[in-house]
């Protein structure tokens, strides 16, 4: 088995066994979606209107919950030093961790979203667009988040500063993702928004490993 796959499987196993970050993220996602109607009222027209934006913001925040541990755990117990010594380049290490994070949070969030969209009275066609946009867009959340996680990995309270760093950088993902759902609601073509979202996600997944690897390196004192 290649080192990349080994690392990927290890991280997924760790995520599943240590408290189940997927379960936590899903519960958080569902809870935010439950609180919003309590806050803005149960008007089904209004809820359908805001569903895309609310679910996108909630998904980004839910994915953030487990991001600060992306490198931190391995940094604290020293395994990150060992991983850095392995033949796998740090860029690919970062990519493996991003993929593992997406598989254990972004993907489950995407799978849950149609159910929550149902609670928000979102029609079937926009629901499909929401599902597709989350499927395309959440990898960007994990990728950009990995930059923040690697920059703050040595900090005791990195979890507080991480959102401040990466949420402004994620604005395009929320804009295009929620925008696609709005376009679908207005019966306009959502392809433009999905295309832009895909471009953003592609660039993020391609470039973030380099930034993340650079900041892991500086934190290891290399």
């Amino acid at each position, binding site marked *: 088995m290649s080192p990349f796959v080994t690392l990927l499987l290890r991280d997924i196993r760790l995520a599943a066994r240590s408290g189940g970050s997927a379960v936590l993220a899903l519960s958080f996602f569902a809870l935010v979606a439950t609180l919003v109607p309590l806050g803005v009222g149960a008007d089904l027209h209004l809820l359908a209107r805001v569903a895309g934006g609310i679910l996108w913001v909630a998904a980004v925040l839910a994915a953030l919950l487990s991001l600060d541990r992306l490198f931190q755990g391995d940094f604290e117990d020293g395994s990150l030093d060992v991983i850095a010594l392995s033949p796998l380049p740090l860029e690919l290490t970062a990519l493996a961790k991003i993929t593992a994070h997406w598989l254990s949070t972004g993907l489950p969030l995407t799978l849950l979203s149609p159910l929550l969209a149902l609670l928000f009275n979102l029609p079937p066609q926009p629901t499909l667009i929401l599902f597709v946009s989350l499927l395309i867009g959440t990898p960007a959340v994990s990728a950009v988040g990995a*930059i923040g996680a690697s*920059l*703050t990995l*040595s*900090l005791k*309270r*990195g979890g507080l*500063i991480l959102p*401040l*760093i*990466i*949420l*402004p*950088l994620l*604005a*395009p993902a929320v*804009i*295009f993702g929620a*925008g696609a759902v*709005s*376009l679908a609601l207005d019966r306009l073509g959502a392809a433009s928004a999905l295309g*832009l979202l895909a471009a*953003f996600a592609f*660039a993020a997944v391609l*470039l973030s490993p380099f*930034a993340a690897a*650079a*900041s892991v390196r*500086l*934190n290891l004192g290399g």
Partner: protein
Amino acid sequence: MNFLFRYANPHEFMRLSGAVLPFTAAATLLCLAVGLYLGFSVPPDYQQGTTIALLFIHVPADVVAELAYGAIAVCSLLSLVWRHPLADTAARAAAPFGALFTALGLVTGSLWGKPMWGTYWVWDARLTSFLLLLFLYLGYMALWNAIEDETRAARAAAILALVGVVNIPIIKFSVDWWSTLHQGESIVSGKVAPVYLWPLLIMMLGYVLLFLTLWMVRIRTAILERRARNLMQAN
């Protein structure tokens, strides 16, 4: 490049900036005084009335807000590629001014918006991207403050600044896209009459000089602070 590195030496920088500082400070005062005088004595605009005066405080603030990020980005690149400590000091010193001028631009913009748009805040593309720019500055400064080891903090901040540079055009594009999707307010555009243009240009020059002056003072303070700390540790 050689020229740059000669003056990037802290000692040389102290000497040069000490000599230049009185002149930039005087030029700043002159530009701001003349600009403000001209700005407040222009005839009222036929549409905006006397609120046109805010233009001369607002637009230059936005210019400097973006200029400061550019300065941070260039310093970060110099720091990452050539590992120059003065570049780190300069980048760190520029951030609070960037945040301050961004905030000034947002506040004066919303004060102008109240009589013109009838509300302090509209989710106009430009306002929104400047609000995001303010958060980028705050995150950058927070990262600097959070990491105790200074060289590590400098390099982490430099990486973040460069990531921001790649992202800022994308954020701007996406916010513009979003704003047209939502049928945002149309931005008052058109040619600026010469009566208004001259005070505006003088104010812009004044703001840029103000930024450069304050930036130099902050870098000098940081260098002196480090020297003082080193002396304390040596004893």
